[in-house]
């Protein structure tokens, strides 16, 4: 049980930088999720912590020990791999007990710990089976069991659910969450799936091109994305992004949402937007609300009507697609009714839910 600390961690493959000067402290018992598109350096980071990848620069601490030069076996971490990496020639219980056997733990103790893991994960009936006789979900469970038996300082998960089908994935997600609550260990979890990241994490790190874009709690990164990348990466469907011109008329700052839609700049942003020519407006789909008619006090609201290109009913909601500034916009309609393509719908947006990003730097304003 220990905290994990990365100081100035860097990984280079020749001239290509995979991870750049990463600083991070993961307190004991935190569930940390590294998320980002493929090639962002998240797996590399994890593998450096495990000791499977050599470090080009910087330091890694597990507990209070610097582990830079240590072999994976001496780091007391355990890892769950994307394709399980079960040992095909060993039965489930042999797989579970292998690390203990290597550590020369006495057989009774191994048996006890294996039994413990078997109980936790419900593998009782599968103990004598070989990996080839297990289903995907069962293999996943064994892979997790193998990590559990060692009671490591930290669990490392490398996209553990990406080989499972959607339904199993949801189920295993819950199991992992429960497991963490039961075991109270530091977990570092890598995924490219933002839903997994949101649901599992105490803290999320969003990475891109070897850099950390943002660190924060799931709610935090969702509601206060620091830049356009995070805004579009977190949340489903992705946040609507519109590049708008800023115009000034009659001392008023106006934002041009579409050719014929001009809206007032929210008061609290006027100071920041006044000198800009263009701005990126980000609005989540659920914040573009379809309404029957506009309410009277529209001062705090942006409102417009627009013809629908496409309506996708999902049951609890219907997603409406239309265009602003030639960019596809999605809106969520929570009280679904049949909608025809081409129908004009009235939308309104609460101004305090709107995100503004600098057109050049893509950073939040």
């Amino acid at each position, binding site marked *: 049980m220990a905290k994990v600390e990365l100081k100035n961690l860097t990984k280079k493959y020749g001239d290509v930088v995979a991870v750049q000067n990463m600083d991070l402290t993961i307190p004991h018992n935190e569930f940390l999720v590294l998320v980002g598109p493929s090639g962002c350096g998240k797996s590399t980071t994890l593998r450096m912590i*495990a000791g*499977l990848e050599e470090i080009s620069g910087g330091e890694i601490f597990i507990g209070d020990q610097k582990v830079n030069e240590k072999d*994976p076996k001496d780091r007391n971490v*355990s890892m769950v*791999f994307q394709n399980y990496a079960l040992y*095909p*020639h060993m039965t489930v219980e042999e797989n579970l007990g292998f690390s203990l056997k290597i550590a020369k733990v006495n057989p009774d103790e191994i048996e006890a710990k294996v039994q413990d893991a078997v109980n936790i994960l419900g593998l009782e009936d599968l103990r004598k089976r070989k990996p*080839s006789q297990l289903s995907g979900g069962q293999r996943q469970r064994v892979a997790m069991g193998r990590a559990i038996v060692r009671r490591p300082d930290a669990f490392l998960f490398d996209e553990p659910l990406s080989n499972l089908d959607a339904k199993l994935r949801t189920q295993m997600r819950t199991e992992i969450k429960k497991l963490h609550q039961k075991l109270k260990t530091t977990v570092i979890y890598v995924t490219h799936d933002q839903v997994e990241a949101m649901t599992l994490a105490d803290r999320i790190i969003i990475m891109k091109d070897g850099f950390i874009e943002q660190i924060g709690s799931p709610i935090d990164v969702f509601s206060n994305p620091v830049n356009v990348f995070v805004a579009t990466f977190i949340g489903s469907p992705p946040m609507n992004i519109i590049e708008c011109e800023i115009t000034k008329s009659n001392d008023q700052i106006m934002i041009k949402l579409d050719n014929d839609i001009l809206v007032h700049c929210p008061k609290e942003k006027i100071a920041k937007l006044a000198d800009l020519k263009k701005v990126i407006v980000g609005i989540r789909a659920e914040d573009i609300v379809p309404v029957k008619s506009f309410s009277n006090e529209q001062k705090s609201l942006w409102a417009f009507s627009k013809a629908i290109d496409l309506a996708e009913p999902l049951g609890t909601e219907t997603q409406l697609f239309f265009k602003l500034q030639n960019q596809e916009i999605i809106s969520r309609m929570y009280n679904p009714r049949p909608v025809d393509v081409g129908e004009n719908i009235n939308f309104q947006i609460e101004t305090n839910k709107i995100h503004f990003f600098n057109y050049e730097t893509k950073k939040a304003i």
Partner: protein
Amino acid sequence: MVRKIFRSPVMLIMPSILAIGFVIIIPLIFSFYTSFTSYKLTRPDSLFNFVGLRNYERLIDNAKFWYAFGRTILFLAVVLNLELLFGLGIALLINKITWGQRTLRTIMMFPMMFSPILVGFQWKYIFNDNIGLLNNFLYLFGYESAIPWLIDKYLAMGSIMVAEIWANTSIFAILLLAGLLGIPRDPIEAARVDGCNSWQVFKNITLPFLMPFVFIALTIRSLDVGRAYDIVHIMTGGGPAMRTELLWTMIARIGYKDANMGFANAMSYVSIILSIAFTYYFFTKLVAARRDLGQQ
């Protein structure tokens, strides 16, 4: 016609079975029969002179045969084990090389191209006490008395083994290298995280993954153990004083030189059963090793 053949597996296999039946099975049945006669090449009518188990009884009583038999088993045990060991070593070595690996692999296959008779000759040349490469080389370091590699009763067997190992280690090396290259990376990494040092990773993960390849190599190799005849035949001809006599050279000597076909055939059967037993054993091991890894 062709269409019909391709619809039925029996028709497809039939030509193979016919060819093997005619060239291998029928002769074997025939020789099985002659092993119960006193057939001598020089006296054709002796083909029908039925002597029951006498040839086999003579075989059991024949000390020279048992020496040859024991020597053959010993020879195979030593040679196969060393080939496996060296092959594994070479495979591990080459697996570590990233630059020029392909070239090295090709060079490694070099000895496989050599006909056994050529291997025998080549090593006969190298081991020649008078003009051989080895003695000439030792001469440079002051060993002026020529070592009689193929004439000394103890050295001869060792020299033959060297030739045999040189010729066949590459089969093991090449197949084990293929095995090494095919091992998925994840289980090895998992084992390293699980606390294994390099040796433990090798013992617990790499080796089990390699086992099918070990047995593929042994199966293929066991098909051809009889070809050691060529090497011995040319290097020493079974000498000196029968110190390198293997089952196969003994069969040739008794069958062709002494023209005692019945007796030689009885001996042949022992050698055939030996070869088949080796092949069968390794093949079942191969199947078991694959099942162990959950393949097919």
